[in-house]
């Protein structure tokens, strides 16, 4: 069924938005495959975003784990995370659709930043909705967005976090679909967004496949990626879905503990539900009210898991895992010391899982971690955690 991954997905939005979704789907199917679009996007990915990103054989982490650990260096993409891959693609698409304005939401600020960049590259106005709590926690990214000339609109409905910002962006979009594109930042939302975002992010896995074959002469034994909506994970996984021998691990935010309201582990604690236009794995209470998620990584602080990811975890192709906040901070420290690389708190979830689950990885296995972003945005949080104040 169109826009479905197994039972997940769909288009659960107000009638007002249906036209925009149809228009977007049609435009994507028409424009994306054209050589001109591919060429323009390819050049921007290469020269602006900095692709291909390296695949780095991490000697320090390899020693610590006994595996051959590789890091797919999405932290080196302009702006510091994988987010720009998708933003450049959608911004180009929106411009060809004749839109003049981009709106979106952001939690960690990485997607907002990437949207602001992409907007400036294609010459479109940008407005970013951001929960008031996230604006505090990720103040440095707010500053970056402002410097880039984006309008940052605080969202104080709900808990003032990502899920509320998504709702507000959908509401804003309903007002102005004619001129405005909602540049969805992860593989969530109503069809065709999950498909579009995964398509633009799958450049990660295509490069990765070629690189690991060059380096090891074979496919990896496992790929580990963090996520909430799932865009960096699917970006890395999609090229390997048919390769049964490649184990795929998805690491979500365990938060403080799996108790009550201290977690973002939707695969552990949620069940299928509809939010923001799609049926997906969802943190919710017994009445179907969406529960706020909790994790120190703003970018993983979302109660839903994108439909494709929900499906892949339901079928068992992808293994859903989690890492707790304290493990994540330790993994940041370990990676800083062992590799000289400062990972984003989100990314550190994947690293923490690798470091703390020797039972999953045998000695000598080739394990790729999708190093989705750098931790500069988390500097204040990290300093407070490690040094107090």
């Amino acid at each position: 069924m169109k826009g479905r991954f197994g039972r997940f997905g769909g288009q659960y939005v107000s009638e007002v938005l249906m036209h925009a979704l149809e228009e977007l789907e049609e435009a994507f199917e028409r424009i994306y495959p054209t050589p001109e679009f591919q060429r323009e996007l390819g050049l921007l990915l290469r020269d602006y975003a900095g692709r291909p990103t390296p695949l780095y054989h991490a000697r320090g982490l390899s020693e610590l784990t006994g595996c051959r650990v590789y890091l797919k260096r999405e932290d080196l993409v302009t702006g510091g995370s994988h987010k720009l891959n998708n933003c450049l693609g959608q911004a180009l698409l929106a411009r060809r659709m004749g839109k003049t304005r981009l709106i979106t939401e952001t939690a960690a600020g990485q997607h907002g930043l990437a949207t602001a960049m992409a907007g400036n590259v294609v010459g479109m106005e940008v407005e970013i909705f951001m929960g008031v709590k996230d604006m505090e926690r990720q103040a440095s990214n707010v500053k970056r967005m402002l410097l880039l000339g984006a309008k940052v609109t605080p969202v104080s409905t709900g808990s003032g976090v990502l899920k509320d910002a998504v709702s507000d962006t959908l509401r804003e979009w309903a007002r102005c679909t004619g001129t405005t594109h909602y540049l969805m930042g992860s593989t969530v939302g109503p069809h065709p967004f999950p498909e579009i975002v995964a398509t633009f992010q799958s450049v990660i896995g295509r490069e990765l496949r070629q690189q690991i074959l060059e380096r090891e002469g074979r496919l990896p034994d496992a790929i580990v990626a963090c996520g909430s909506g799932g865009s960096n994970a699917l970006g890395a996984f999609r090229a390997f879905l048919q390769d049964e021998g490649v184990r795929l691990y998805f690491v979500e935010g365990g938060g403080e503990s799996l108790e009550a309201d201290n977690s973002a582990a939707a695969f552990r604690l949620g069940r299928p539900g509809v939010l923001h236009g799609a049926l997906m794995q969802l943190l919710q209470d017994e009445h179907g009210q969406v529960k706020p998620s909790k994790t120190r990584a703003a970018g993983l602080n979302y109660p839903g898991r994108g439909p494709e990811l929900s499906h892949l975890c339901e079928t068992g192709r992808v293994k859903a895992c989690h890492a707790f906040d304290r493990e994540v901070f330790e993994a940041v420290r370990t990676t800083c010391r062992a590799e000289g690389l400062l990972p984003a708190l989100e990314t550190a979830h994947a690293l923490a899982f690798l470091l703390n689950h020797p039972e999953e990885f045998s000695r000598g296995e080739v394990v790729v971690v999708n190093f989705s972003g750098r931790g500069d945005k988390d500097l204040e949080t990290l300093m407070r955690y490690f040094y107090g104040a």
Partner: protein
Amino acid sequence: MELEKRLEELRRRGEGALMPHVYFGDPSPAFSFRLIRTLAEGGADLLELGIPFSDPIADGPTFIAACERALAAGVTPRGCLEALRRLREEGLHLPVLLTTYYNVILSMGLGKFCAEVRRAGAQGLIVPDLPVEEADELLESARGEGLHLIFQVAPTTSGRRMERIVGKASGFLYVIGVEGVTGAREELEPSTVELMGRVRRLTSLPLLAGFGISRPEHVVSLLRAGADGCVVGSAIARIYSERLEEPEQTLPSISKFVRSLKEATRSPP
């Protein structure tokens, strides 16, 4: 009371239907009971009773706040159905449409939800995040219980989709006159009038216009444009929202407001 009959009757009388929309439990269940009685007494012809949801993406600031307050007051979907049952026992006669977001329904189970809704005494469902493409399952459950599933059309709805919607609709069509979300607006947009004409050409179903209606003049214009009635929501919540410590104090103003709207539905075309 039967929904179609009531609309038929109003049409015969040359009168527009007035459907107030309230989120139950805002700011407390007790107030909602009094509010609904006030609306019924003030001349409401139908009632849209909302089950609050945590993430009401089709609603504007007034109703977002209403949902938050109702949830904070501990309101649950079952509590809402229970309340409707009580309202019926106490003599509420209007046809009632239950409104909520799809996840609330899904969470209880489609069949169970529809059965409970019928038992509570409602005549239909409005699910603002369920476009016709996703509606087949719920449609089946609703029909099984004799409930209408009300569909919406909007200025952005293409002709092709409009036909598909009309093909599945029953009860009435909810015509969203503006692009955007719920919320009282000062002016009606010309697109609303244009849309009403477009829909009328396709169907003889009653058309209820909603989103942004806040004045008797709006009602008059919409009925002139071909609507069979109007939905008024945020404009009511806005009145009591301004005195949340003692919302009962606003009931006289609300009563006056509803009467003025009902009056407008009777103005000759």
